[in-house]
Structures are given as C-alpha cells and as structure tokens.
C-alpha cells in the first residue's frame, strides 16, 4: 500500500514507474510504515517540545545565584513561590492571589468567547447558505490578526483612554460627567482585548463541528415537533461538543499563559501567572521561572484533563 501511495504521489520521480519498471515489490511491515508516517511529527515533537520540557523540569529543581545556574538539587524555586501560603492564612499568598486572578480572567474570557464564538459559528454554519460567503465571512474573523499585537493594543488607548473616543463621546452626549477611568488599564480592558483576540479560536473549531452535522438530523428534529430551542439543546450542542471543547482548550491555554496582553491592557498592574515567570526570567532567576512554568503547566493540564473528561475528543474526531 505504501508503495502505491508513493508511486501515486510522485509518478514522475521514479523513472519508468508503473510501466517499464518490473522490480519485485518489497513489502514493508505495516507497523513500520505507520511508525515512518508518524515519525517526522514525532521527532519534531520530541526535539522542540518534550526535550525542552524535560530541561525546564530539571532546571526548576536547580539552585541559582545572581549570575549562574547552580546544578545542585534545590527546591528553592518552589518553596520561594509558595512563600507565605501557610503563614499568611487566611489571606492568600502571592501565588494564590495571582492564580485566582488568572483563573478569574480566564473564566471570563472563556465564557464570553464561547458565547460569541458559538453564535458566530451557528450563524455561519446554518444561516449562511453559500460556501463562498461562509469562507468570506470566516476570513473576516481573522481581521484582528492582521496587525501586530502591539499596534492592536496601542490602538485601544485613543479609543478607551481618558480622552479617548468612547469617553469624549459619552461626555458629549451628557450620559456621564467625568471620563470613565475603568475603560482602560483595568480588568475590563484586559478581558475586552483578550475576547477581541481569541474569539476566532472558538469560532473555527465550533464552525467545523457544526458544518459536519447532518442536516437531516435537524429536519428529523423539526419533523418530530421539536422547537428551535429543543433542537439546539438536544441536537446541535451535543454534536458541536468536540468543537466547543477544542476551542475552549485553545482559549484557556492561551489565556492562562498570556502576560503580554494582560500586561499592556492592564497597565502592568494586574497579576498573571505568565507575568511572574517573565519577572523571574528578566531577573535571570531561571530556576524560579522554570518552577513557576511547571506549576502553570500542571494547573493548565488539570483544567484540560477535566474538560476532556466531559468529551472524549479522540472518539468524537
């Protein structure tokens, strides 16, 4: 089978293939072929993900000083991170507060992107009839990605700033007397920017799931007398679940690790798990940064495991 594939794929590359070539086909064992096919991706995964990850875990248990990593076992990266977590009870320690804030932002962004993303995907999948329009409108969703992260975020200042468009508009219409300070450099602006950025990651997988729903199922529901709402809850949502979970995984992993958007939109005053790592790295405290990265990884992994409990993605795909 593999040879057929090879020959089909590149008939011009093998001289005389198909006609004049009479060499005996040497069959490779099928398991070997599977390994060969999965090999390149596996190697990339190994070299650029697993090995670096192993290093991060190892370094997280090293000691350090101002200018060197000291390759001796030390739990300092971790103990420093959880400093005061018991002593300060019932108040939260730094890491507790930081993760609480990160999870809160993450939940808000997830809920909003899911709501918006679901309905955008619903509209694209069920209300837009022509394939061309579906494609065109999906591409429109990528507009936020056309500019650089920085420009996009700087662009919010003239809009949401103290003397920005929104505030001056509201003041002029007499709705408010003083500019609203919380429009910018606040949790509001952070969530706004993250939603603006990442709704697209919800739209695509949900749309992908929805487009594959057999239309006759919806017709059947309609024929059986289901209301629109019943069809949505009992047919469409269950069948779009894989897309919802995949989109959620995208959004949650990105937001959990984000520190640039949170930093710029939050005026660098809002704690984020990623920001702790950034501050540590900038101070050349690599083991402490690595320890925080490991903690972040574990927490994110736990969330994703919980989500994949809800839906068996492998099965659904």
């Amino acid at each position, binding site marked *: 089978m593999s040879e057929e594939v090879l020959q089909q794929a590149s008939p011009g590359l093998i001289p005389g293939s198909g006609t004049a070539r009479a060499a005996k086909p040497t069959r490779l064992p099928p398991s070997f072929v599977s390994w060969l096919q999965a090999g390149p991706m596996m190697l990339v995964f190994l070299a650029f993900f697993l090995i670096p990850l192993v290093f991060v875990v190892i370094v997280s248990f090293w000691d350090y000083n*101002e*200018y*060197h990593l000291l390759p001796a076992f030390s739990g300092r990266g971790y103990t*420093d991170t959880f*400093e005061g977590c018991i002593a300060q009870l019932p108040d939260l320690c*730094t890491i507790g*507060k*930081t993760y609480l*804030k990160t999870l809160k932002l993450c939940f808000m962004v997830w809920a909003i992107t899911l709501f918006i993303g679901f309905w955008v995907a619903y509209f694209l999948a069920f209300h837009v009839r022509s394939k061309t329009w579906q494609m065109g409108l999906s591409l429109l969703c990528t507009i936020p990605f056309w500019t*650089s*992260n*920085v*420009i996009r975020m*700087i662009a919010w*200042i*003239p809009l949401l*700033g*103290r*003397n*920005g468009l929104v505030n001056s508009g509201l003041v002029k219409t007499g709705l408010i007397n003083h500019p609203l*300070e919380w429009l*910018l*450099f606040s949790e509001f602006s952070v969530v706004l920017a993250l939603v603006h950025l990442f709704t697209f990651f919800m739209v695509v997988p949900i749309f992908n799931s929805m487009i594959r729903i057999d239309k006759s199922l919806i017709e059947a529901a309609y024929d059986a007398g289901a209301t629109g709402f019943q069809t949505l809850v009992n047919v469409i949502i269950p069948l779009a679940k894989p897309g919802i979970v995949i989109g959620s995984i995208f959004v949650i992993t990105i937001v959990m690790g984000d520190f*640039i958007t949170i930093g*710029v939109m939050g*005026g*660098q*005053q*809002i*704690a984020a798990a990623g*920001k*702790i790592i*950034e*501050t*540590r*790295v*900038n*101070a*050349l*405290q690599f083991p*402490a940064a690595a320890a925080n990265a490991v903690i972040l990884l574990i927490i994110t992994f736990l969330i994703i495991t919980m989500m994949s409990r809800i839906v068996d993605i492998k099965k659904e795909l």
Partner: protein
Amino acid sequence: MSKTTGTKGVSRRTLLRGTAGLAGLAAGSGAITGFPYVKSADAKVLRYLGTAVNEGDDISKQCLKDTGIKIEYITATTDDVTKRVMTQPNSFDVLDTEYFSLKKIVPSGNILALDARKIKEFDNITPVFTKGETPGGKKIGGQGTAPWKVLYLEGKDSKKFATSATEFVTLIPTVYNADTLGIRPDLIKRPISSWSELLNPEFKGKASILNIPSIGIMDAAMVVEATGKYKYADKGNMTKEEIDLTMKVMTEAKKAGQFRAFWKDFNESVNLMASGETVIQSMWSPAVTKVRSMGIACTFQPLKEGYRSWASGFCVSKGVSGAKLDWAYEFVNWFLSGYAGAYLNRQGYYSAVLSTAKANMEPYEWAYWMEGKAAEKDIKAPDGSLLEKAGAVRDGGSYEDRMGGVACWNAVMDENDYMVRKWNEFIAA
C-alpha cells in the same frame, strides 16, 4: 492621536516591546540585526549587542566611513542584553550595556575587560565616571551602582572590582544621563518640586513609574525619602526590611489607584504622557522631548531631592581576540572621538568624552544642551527635525547642575532575589 513611529535614533531601549521585545520574549531573545552576517576574511565586522540608545544608523554609517568597520546591531531590551551575555556569550563581539548590570555580568566571566592604555581619550573621560564628581568639582551622589564603584577590575581575568584605578576597565564609558519625573505642566497647573508628588493623591490614577523592578523601587525610595518617612543608607542596596517598607508604600498607592499604568518602553511612556493618561511619571529625557515635539507641554522636572542616574559603556565578549580585538579597540576609540558623542548630546544624553563632542557641535548647540543657556537658534535633532525653538532653555539647566544633582544610580541590589519576589507580590496586591 499618539504617534508611535519615527523615533529611530531618538530612543533609548526602544524597539523593545515593539518587535524585538515580542519576538524576543516569544522566541527566547531574538537577534534582530539589520544586515546579513557576511563571513569574509577581510571585512571588518563587529557584532554589536546593546539597547537602542547608542545605536543609530548614522553612527554605524559614519563609523564605516571613518574606520572601515562594519557594525551589525543586535538590539535588545536591557534585561535581554544581560540575558544574552549570560547565555550566549559567543553571539556578539562588542557589548554596550549599563553599569548596574556589571554586578551580574562580571562574575559570570563572559566579558573581557578592556585595557585603559589602549583607549586614546581615556584620560579625557569625564570625572563623573572616574572620580564621582562633575568637571566643575561638584560631588555626585553615589547610592546604587555608581559607575566609579565598578569601573575597574583588579586584574585582567579578575572578577573583583578594584577600589582604585587599574588599567583593566569593565566598561569604557559612552553615554549617561540624569533621569527625573516628567510632568504635564498644562494639566498640573502648579509648580512641582519634590519626588513626593509622584504619590500625591492629587494625581490619583494619573501617575506612572517604570516597570523595571530594580528601577521602579528606586523611584519609590526617592518618594519615601522625600516624604520624610525614612532615610535609606543606600537606596540602591536596600536591606530586606527597607524593601518591605518601600513595597508597602507602593502597595498602598497601588491599591488606592494612584498608578494609571507602568511603562517599560520609550514609546509607551510617550503615549501615556501625550494622551493625558498620566500627568506625572518617571521618564527619559528624549521621551520628554518627543512629547514636546508633538506640540504638547511636557517638562523634565528637576526636583530638590535630585536625579536618578544611569550610565553605559563598552566591553567585549570573552570570545574576542586577535584582529577582532584590535577592531574593537579601534571602534571604541572612534566612538569616543567626537561624532558619536555629539550625536548623543543632541538627543539630550551626555557623552563620556566632553571635549571631542564639543568639537563636533556648533557653539549654540553646546550652549543649549550643556551650558543651560537659552537657545540662540532653533535646536534640531540629529535627524534634522525641530526639537526646540530659539529662546528655549533645557529643563534642569546645565550639565553641572543636572549631573551635579544626581542622588543615586540604577542598581542591582544584594537582595535582588527577595526584591523580585516582593515585586510580584506588589503586582498581585
């Protein structure tokens, strides 16, 4: 409203968040070079790692013309420069960095001290670096990592800073300045004369500081001292208790909503100020000039407690030897020979060798930038754009007054690790 482009050559540590910062953070400090690396036996090429302060295209072009040495800039943030020196010492030849990073870089053994005897103008370097006083004899505040404390090494391969002059120089001085608060006089409408105003509730939600922990905490310390709450033995090297005290003051201010945002990049500081988001914040001199050149009133306000200063200079990577080392000396000597110094002076920074810079500036320029006199003619930036109209006077006045008024220097504390942890706590509060 707020332009963010067109600061090339005017910006200290620019490009940071811009492109290099993002790419760097994402990809683990990326090398952004303007030119492809040409491997040729004859071409005199030096890879120059540094922040954007000294890195002007005009400087590299002039250098190529005068010496035949081609400079390849590798631009990074202050933090990323240090990171690169520690982790990839072979990825650059000449290093341009700040004195306060020496406490990390020197013990790593990744840089080579330069020989003072091979630097032609070494004896003409301003006494600010060598003696800690201005040419006029004013004593300069030495709190923090003052350059004269870390200027010399005990021996060629020593990792110890010498207490008296030796021929082994850690960094050949190039550029420095005295930083203070920038204010919007049109929005504040009253005189500002003390650092304590930074945390004055009157400016609630309209203040900002630099988002570099080691520098931010020093600004906070200036405020604490100005309010008379506490007097530090050395603001640049606090004890744990002092860090706690300073952070407590900062945390209270943060919780009360004093700060609008912290900034890390030249353009951010310009944006915040120009858009009126902030009216008082720590700032860099060319950033103030930039806001003013947009037609918005902005003052680099001298304060009675003094300035927080910084300085940077050149050294080479430990991997540099032979002909390349000779080029490095040639380059450093060229840099101090006047063209670059004048270029930096015209941006509002100060050059290390004053005499050669003066020879490369017009007398009216020198009078405005260095002597604190009213400008006889319009003052132009190195790129020819108008900075100040005739009659203007530089904020803070003359070199003597500004450098003489320095109270402390950017620093890395002995308790840096503790301070960084406290900073994260402060952000989470």
